[in-house]
């Protein structure tokens, strides 16, 4: 009778458990504890009372809900028709739409927000033109509208990609049988196709909600501080680590993120349709009629222009000399790039270093958890999976507050430095926050691999360790690389934890630099240049690893994107 706790896997499981406990569970628990603890360590709701007693906090709370909800609505309006077009019809835009799915990964909303203001703002390009031509302006970027607009444009691909996957899983017979019974057109979509794609839609919508609800960078850059995340950040950074209001805001954010995840799971319970059946073939692709073509391409071009607006804007900004109250910059220059490369090479290097380490740790931990769950029977490993995935629901600002509070006053051994002001903590924050992506990717890769491939290895004389090294890892390498890329890319543009954990200029990564530059009108040029460099670095990294991945396995770029949509 073999032991329930084989030594090697158990040791690995314990190591991972210790890491997650120290850097995820305890910090978050600390935040929750502080929010509910009175001075003597007893339970109290008084902090919540005072939180909701402050009108700014009440307003922030409702604003956050409003912004997140409206962002989901607008993202849906953009994403659902696009998803349906790509899956349902034969047309050339499919590749373009797949590419759209990657854009938000490469550039987070806060980077493009300033550019969006210059294009769509009150005195931005679009409104200047509208005013010239028709004498009207559209307040797209005013107040919370701006946040909703920027977030919806950046996050709709989460709904898009998830829905494409769901739609692709629908067997054509599901639709044909409905046609056979008399349904067609919009009714067919409403009664059969959309309900069957619901799992993907709900997963994507929940993700958009969480991302928007927790986003710190975009509201800060757009100077909309009457939202929860900015309030938590401002309370902690301006009043201090002791201020309980910041913790209450944090707890509310975590609660709503968890609620969104739970609600999507609850809504979909028992509805995870395995619609792929024998003789499976995805939805039949129809030819577009000329009229439909015009509509479809028109919609796609419109969306493409919107999605590319922040990117184009950032590019213009980085090369523009002065861009203010004009449709386009007055003249162009390389000045900003020169100054950035001269002044901030340290930031570029920091980003590569931090994100490289974090992504490497993520795939190691992700592979280990995947293997423990799928290939061993060590009791309790499911908890590791659950805990690591739960990091999705923890906003960066909350995690950072947890770190600052939990490790307050700790000193690093052999260095005369506080743990909370060390760059190591930034790397750990990245590792924890991006672990769910790498974990999904590694789990999927291992799931696709039949256990008999390993058994064949063992049967031919390789022990467990050698089987893992010679068979499992080589076969998983595509998924592992996909996980690495995803973690690296998303960590490179992480701002909400970064902004709180960076204490010294020389430790700052690019995301922090972009944010700092964007604060002042004079810094916009260099900030945009840094943003362009970040995009280029991430793009090069993506391309290189994509080449490695495709040369070694069939895992595609779409795979990377789907992982994000966990």
């Amino acid at each position, binding site marked *: 009778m073999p032991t329930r706790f084989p030594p090697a896997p158990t040791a690995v499981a314990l190591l991972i458990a210790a890491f997650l406990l120290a850097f995820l569970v305890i910090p978050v628990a600390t935040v929750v504890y502080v929010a509910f603890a009175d001075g003597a360590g007893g339970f109290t709701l008084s902090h919540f009372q005072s939180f909701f007693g402050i009108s700014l906090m009440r307003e922030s709370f409702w604003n956050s809900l409003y912004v997140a909800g409206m962002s989901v609505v607008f993202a849906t309006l953009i994403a659902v028709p696009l998803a349906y077009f790509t899956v349902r019809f034969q047309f050339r835009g499919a590749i373009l739409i797949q590419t759209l799915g990657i854009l938000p990964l490469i550039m987070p909303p806060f980077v493009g927000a300033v550019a969006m203001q210059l294009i769509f703002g009150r005195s931005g390009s679009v409104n200047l033109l509208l005013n010239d031509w028709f004498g009207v302006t559209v307040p797209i970027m005013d107040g919370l509208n701006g946040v909703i607009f920027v977030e919806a444009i950046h996050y709709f691909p989460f709904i898009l990609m998830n829905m494409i996957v769901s739609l692709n899983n629908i*067997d054509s017979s*599901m639709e044909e049988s*409905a*046609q*056979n*019974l008399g349904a*067609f057109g919009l009714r067919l979509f409403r009664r*059969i196709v959309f*309900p069957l794609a619901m799992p993907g839609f709900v997963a994507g919508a929940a993700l958009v909600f969480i991302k928007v609800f927790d986003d710190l960078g975009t509201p800060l850059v757009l100077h909309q501080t009457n939202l929860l995340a900015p309030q938590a950040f401002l309370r902690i950074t301006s009043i201090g680590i002791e201020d309980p209001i910041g913790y209450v805001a944090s707890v509310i954010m975590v609660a709503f993120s968890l609620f969104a995840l739970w609600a999507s799971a609850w809504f979909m319970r028992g509805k995870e349709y395995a619609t792929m*059946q024998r003789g499976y073939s995805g939805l039949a692709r129809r030819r577009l009629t000329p009229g439909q073509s015009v509509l479809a391409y028109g919609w796609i071009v419109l969306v493409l222009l919107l999605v590319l607006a922040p990117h184009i804007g950032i590019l213009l900004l980085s090369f523009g000399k002065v861009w203010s109250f004009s449709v386009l910059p007055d003249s162009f220059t390389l000045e900003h790039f020169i100054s950035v490369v001269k002044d901030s090479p340290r930031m570029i290097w920091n980003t590569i270093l931090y994100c490289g380490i974090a992504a490497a740790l993520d795939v190691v931990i992700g592979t280990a958890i995947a293997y423990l769950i799928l290939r061993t029977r060590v009791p309790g490993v499911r908890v590791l999976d659950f805990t690591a995935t739960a990091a999705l629901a923890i906003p960066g600002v909350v995690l950072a507050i947890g770190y600052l509070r939990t490790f307050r006053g700790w000193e690093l051994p052999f260095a005369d430095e506080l743990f909370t002001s060390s760059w190591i903590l930034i790397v750990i924050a990245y590792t924890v926050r991006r672990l769910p992506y790498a974990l999904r990717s590694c789990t999927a890769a291992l799931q696709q691999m039949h256990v008999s491939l390993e058994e064949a290895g063992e049967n031919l004389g390789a022990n467990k360790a050698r089987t893992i090294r010679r068979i499992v890892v080589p076969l998983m390498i595509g998924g592992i690389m996909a996980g690495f890329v995803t973690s690296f890319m998303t960590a490179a543009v992480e701002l909400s934890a970064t902004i709180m954990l960076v204490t010294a200029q020389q430790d700052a990564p690019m995301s922090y630099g972009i944010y700092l530059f964007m604060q002042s009108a004079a810094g916009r040029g260099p900030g945009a240049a840094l943003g362009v460099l970040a995009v280029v670095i991430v793009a090069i990294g993506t391309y290189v690893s994509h080449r490695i991945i495709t040369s070694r396995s069939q895992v595609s770029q779409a795979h990377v994107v789907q992982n994000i949509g966990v």
Partner: protein
Amino acid sequence: MELNKVRVEIRNVSLAYGKTQVLRDVSANIEPGEFFALLGPSGSGKSTLLRLIAGFNQSQSGEVLIDGEDVSRVPPWKRNIGMVFQNYALWPHMTVAGNVAFGLEERRLPREDIRRKVAAALDLVGLSEYAARRPGQLSGGQQQRVAVARTIAIEPKVLLLDEPLSNLDAKLRVHMRVELLALQRKLGITTVFVTHDQEEALSISDRVAVLDGGIVQQIGTPMELYDRPANRFIANFVGTINFLPGTVSASAGGAVFDSPLTGKIALPVPAAPGRVEIALRPHSLRLAAARDNPARIWIDATVAEREFLGEFIRYKVRAGDQDLIVDEPHFPGTDVFQPGAMVSVAIQPDQIGVIPA
């Protein structure tokens, strides 16, 4: 529930996907109320033909007439032709009753009529108690009945069944095919049934069209196909058969077959002179230790292999350079030949079929 009996005519239909020709000049006339099978190996075009009748693909030439009306330009949702899909295609987000009600709702029937018709359709397939269940909670056989009920509920002009039994286990398959036939007889609905299983096609169909390579090889009753196969493919595909090559020459008493193995045999059927193959069903042949009946044609052979199949023993014997399959009925105590044994094979002259070479 008594439905109109409708004729389905397929006239000179050709269909290609890109460069792949799937159907070549296919014609068939399906009589009102008939249970008609489309039989063929995979890739023969049988499912494509069925989907053409349902309206899910378009032929390049030819037409499909239903009740005398060309439906080539009618979209699937306006055809009122019920189709039961191979995988049943039950919608997992609706209950059994919801699935069955769907087509009626699409037809904007009054609520009361829908309720009544759903109840009737479920009653017909014996699943009244399962109305509130989800398809995922049903067994394969029950799912199939729901699929049938859903299709019958709209009172279609024609019923199409796409390999309806292929997802069931062997026992259930035999049971369900009897049930399907009983249902079809009760409703009297013209039914077209696709299968790759010749036993299935022969056992329940009124007539069968055998397709291969997108071409109709033969249309006939099951017995006609078995007894008088039009060509080598049919003879081989429908049942098991032996072929012996030789030549036919005319004589005063009729056609005479000649081959080195058999010598001259007077054929029971007319045949044109020239090279032919004669076809021999395994159960029309007999094995014996010695030539005991001079009325038969005897050839010498060696037993190569033996399979015990219960009702009979299937021998593979070698005669000259020719392999023959012989089915010997089995009863307790009957002679059994061992592999390697020298035997004589008896051919009954009146059971010989002729396939033009």
